[in-house]
């Protein structure tokens, strides 16, 4: 770590800020929080300093962490890059392909770093998968399955608005879309089907996405935003010519309580080991890179590509046909 603390501006005080602010502070950063709402409560919970305007924030800090709703990422990240800041952006990097591309180009032209917070790359079970694939122990990958299930995020209304959030594919399944591409390589074809039911107060949404990789490997990604009681779970099953690897968060438990009184796990975020919290590892890797450390495991181009694949899936929902990414070009 650096001797003089990083000065970081956190924009947004919603759900995911609870997984960023304490880690930024734990890493010794000086954190200023700007949000349209909720900043005083967030700072009261963890620490940091509330600032009242975005201008003030950008004047105070060297780095910016954008943890706001999806549809605002583009404008805020653009503003921060133009102000000469290195930026962490919550995923998805942007809502549209054009916006994501523009941010990548802007980071390059301003010479600033832009890191999309694809936190699943920092979860140890997915790190094991990546390492296993890269070591060659699984051989040439053939078929991959990923699944992610939890409660529908109803705490703020924008998640339910597909125009704003991109729905479950852009918000939740983009994690596994990124992981599939991380381990099995570039994607040439995308198809998707999706469904939604329930009531406006208690919606549920699900989708299946199929990916064909340039290598010939095939991936299935399943996403579920279920009713409020559904516990957050993830699974993967990856088979190559030399071996297979699978993981189920529900099966791999190192603490199973059967107590009269217990703290139930929520349905919005995965259960993590606090001694190796993936959000902490992620923030540590990004801030270390800001301070001159090695390049993080995820780049702005990865973030833009995940957005492009998720949008291709959304296009497939509309057309009812797979989207060939080799024709549309990169």
């Amino acid at each position, binding site marked *: 770590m650096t001797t003089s603390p990083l000065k970081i501006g956190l924009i947004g005080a919603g759900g995911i800020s609870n997984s960023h602010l304490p880690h930024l502070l734990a890493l010794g950063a000086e954190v200023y929080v700007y949000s349209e709402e909720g900043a005083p409560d967030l700072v009261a919970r963890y620490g940091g300093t509330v600032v009242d305007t975005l201008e003030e924030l950008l004047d105070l800090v060297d780095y910016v962490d954008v943890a706001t709703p999806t549809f605002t990422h583009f404008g805020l990240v653009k503003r921060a890059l133009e102000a000469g800041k290195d930026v962490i952006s919550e995923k998805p990097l942007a809502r549209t392909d054009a916006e994501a591309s523009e941010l990548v180009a802007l980071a390059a032209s301003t010479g600033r770093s832009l890191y999309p917070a694809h936190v699943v790359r920092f979860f140890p079970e997915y790190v094991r998968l990546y390492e296993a694939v890269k070591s060659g122990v699984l051989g040439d990958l053939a*078929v991959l399955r990923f699944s992610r*299930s939890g409660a529908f995020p109803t705490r703020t209304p924008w998640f339910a608005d597909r125009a704003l959030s991109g729905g479950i594919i852009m918000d939740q399944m983009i994690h596994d879309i990124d992981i599939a591409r991380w381990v099995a390589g570039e994607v040439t074809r995308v198809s998707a089907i999706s469904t939604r039911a329930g009531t406006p107060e208690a919606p549920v949404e*699900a989708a*299946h996405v*199929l990916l064909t990789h340039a290598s010939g*490997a095939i991936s*299935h990604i399943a996403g579920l935003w279920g009713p409020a009681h559904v516990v957050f779970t993830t699974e993967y099953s990856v088979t190559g*010519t030399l071996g297979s690897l699978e993981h189920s968060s529900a099966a791999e438990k190192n603490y199973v309580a059967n107590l009269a009184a217990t703290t139930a796990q929520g349905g919005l975020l995965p259960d993590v080991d606090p001694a190796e919290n993936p959000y902490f590892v992620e923030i540590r890797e990004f801030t270390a890179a800001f301070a001159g450390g090695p390049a993080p495991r995820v780049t702005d181009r990865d973030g833009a590509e995940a957005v492009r694949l998720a949008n291709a899936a959304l296009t497939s929902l509309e057309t009812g*046909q*797979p989207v060939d990414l080799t024709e549309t070009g990169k």
Partner: protein
Amino acid sequence: MSFAHTHAGGYVELLLADPTVTLLASDPGTHPEGELRGRAFADALGVGYVDSYEELLAWKPDAVIVTSENAHHREHVELAAAAGAHVLCEKPLATTLEDGKAMLAATEAAGVMLMVAFPVRFASTFLKLKADYDNGLLGQVITVRGSNNGKLPVARSWFTDPALSGGGALVDHVVHIADLLEGLMGAAPVSVTAITNQKLHADRAQAETAGLVTITYDNGVIAAIDCSWSRPESAPTWGGVKMTVAGTNGTVDLDFFGPRARGLDTASGRPIELPYGPNFDASLVGTFLDGVRSGIPPQPDGAVGLRTLRIVLAAQESASTGGTVTIVED
């Protein structure tokens, strides 16, 4: 009729154990070298044997079980129907729509019942799911994901000869979960998308060895099936069938062949896995016999076989054209 399918041995053992049933078998023709077939297989099982289907049907059986190569199902079902015998046909019903329709027409014209051997729907776990579904405990079902993964079938060479099997992993493994969805919801499949490759068992593969399929149904449900032959020959057990069903009231996970005692071989460190649980084939055969005795046609019938075949054929078309295929039932 025929010992081509490896399930034939299991059916013979079940029927020989039933004192109310007399059984005769035939498996004429020249058989692949190294495969125990014909009279030798009958002798090994201790079942009566005749050299031709003419002799078998001249015996005037009340019912016939067809366990020939997939591409020969039509011929044998038509022979049995013409002889006035009720038929239990191994899955898949056929390898072409034309054959499937002809089989339904032949059995209907002869006034005999046609049942298709989908044993997994007789699992008590499925019956429990069906009861929960019918009682509304799942709410409105929105999504299903299933996997039916096994080893490359090597005990009988025809399984990997598309001319006899009708294809690869798609034709072998999609139908089980398709049948479970049919048994659960009775909804009509609307569109099918499939991606495949031949990376696994590439030395023996003459058709796809891995496949991922998504299906939309007319009740709004979306489903995904992994049908890959992704278990290595060295695996301790053949594979399994898993399914997750999610609705507005929550999720149910089923692992039809999951429960097992586990250990390790001291010398090699390889896993010892000893699965347990009821034999679904016993309920399947029992249901068929009940149908034959009562005259009440048992499920799953030929119409289910035809509907699940349409899904397979659409998946094959999708995999070859790269497009999503719409199913039109006529």
